[in-house]
């Protein structure tokens, strides 16, 4: 029960209900769940190119040859990639920070793989960076930092803008709003 409580939205009561349900009625499913979790933990790692979760060394998007090499979209979380893929017509590549710069939480550039991003920008293929970090203060600081990295390499940057509510996180925004915000991104 304690183990289940690590899941978001699961309090003590829910954890108890889930545990009893699995043990009493769904012992087979519980086994499948246990195996799946174990395999996932063993097999799923980080993409070498974009840092998102993947079963391979390089994720499906990064290994696709049909995408636009010139565009790179920076997001905070893997869920943001899915949200953008589902809601927009964006066909470039991604870089997933797995967080955002937050000096007051002690999260710095090295924690977000920005050195790795720097190397990628040095490859000279990317012509535009789309800053799709959340419209929070930390998301803004992160966008600013990356725009400086891009500026030092003469790469154009744009930032998603209208529509996304301030304080909002991309993952929770409806697809219309996100799609609009993406289309109306502005120079940054």
């Amino acid at each position: 029960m304690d183990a289940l409580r690590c899941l978001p939205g699961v309090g003590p009561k829910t954890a108890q209900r889930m545990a009893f349900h699995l043990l009493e009625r769904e012992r087979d499913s519980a086994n499948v769940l246990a195996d799946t979790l174990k395999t996932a933990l063993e097999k799923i790692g980080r993409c070498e190119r974009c840092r998102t979760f993947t079963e391979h060394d390089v994720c499906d998007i990064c290994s696709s040859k049909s995408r636009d090499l010139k565009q790179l979209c920076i997001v905070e979380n893997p869920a943001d990639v899915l949200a953008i893929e589902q809601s927009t017509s964006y066909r470039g590549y991604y870089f997933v920070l797995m967080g955002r710069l937050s000096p007051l939480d002690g999260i710095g550039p090295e924690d977000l793989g920005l050195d790795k991003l720097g190397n990628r920008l040095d490859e000279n293929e990317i012509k535009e960076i789309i800053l799709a970090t959340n419209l929070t203060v930390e998301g803004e600081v992160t966008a600013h930092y990356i725009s400086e990295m891009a500026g030092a390499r003469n790469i154009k940057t744009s930032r998603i803008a209208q529509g996304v509510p301030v304080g909002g996180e991309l993952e929770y925004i409806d697809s219309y709003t996100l799609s609009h915000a993406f289309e109306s991104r502005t120079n940054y």
Partner: protein
Amino acid sequence: MTQGAQQSNGFVLHSRRFRENSRILEVFTETAGRIAVVARVSRRKGGSSASVYQPFRKLSVHWRGRGELQNILSAEELEHFPLSSHASLCGLYCNELLLYLTSKFIPMPSIYSSYQETLKSLAEENIFEPALRRFEFVLLEELGFGLDLETDHLTGQLLVDAEQYYYHPAMGLSSKNPGQGSFIVPAEAIDAIRKQDFSRQSNAKAVKLILASTIDRLLDGRPLKSRQLFRDMVKINT
């Protein structure tokens, strides 16, 4: 601690997740000093409170509770200081200073109004350094660590006129070299701080060093992460 409901205007300095639907907010209030409050936050579609609890927004906050952690009853946004790109990092720097240097539950009205002025400047002006220096200056004054710019700490006498002085973060100014831990500052920089004129470029570096080294002494070795981020950014461009 008092138990009845309290109200003050204030700014969120920092927030962190707490359980699934809540955040712990550090709020710098006008009349009750720095407080920590628990707030429920809706992250779902159409959720509105997430934006209210972003930094750099003046809120009217009602809270209740006892001990270290209070509960927020309501928060209403009164004014928003939109800080973009570099200004947002400057704002976080001010927040970090307030988090580390102010004590909980002690009202600091002068620091509060200076903080608000600083956010206004950061939002409206293109140069940020003078606003940051003024805030650092007020912070030191109000915390009881104001700079003594009149006394020579080696002699105990009034500082004699000179082209330059030595500044030691713990001891202050002297006209002769007091040894380790001090650095040379031009008289112009001292004069600028006396007049609280932080806009002159010519002595900006020395003024910054005097204030920063004094703040560092108060921090007692605790590094400022936002300042480190400033430095990392300077490195990008060199």
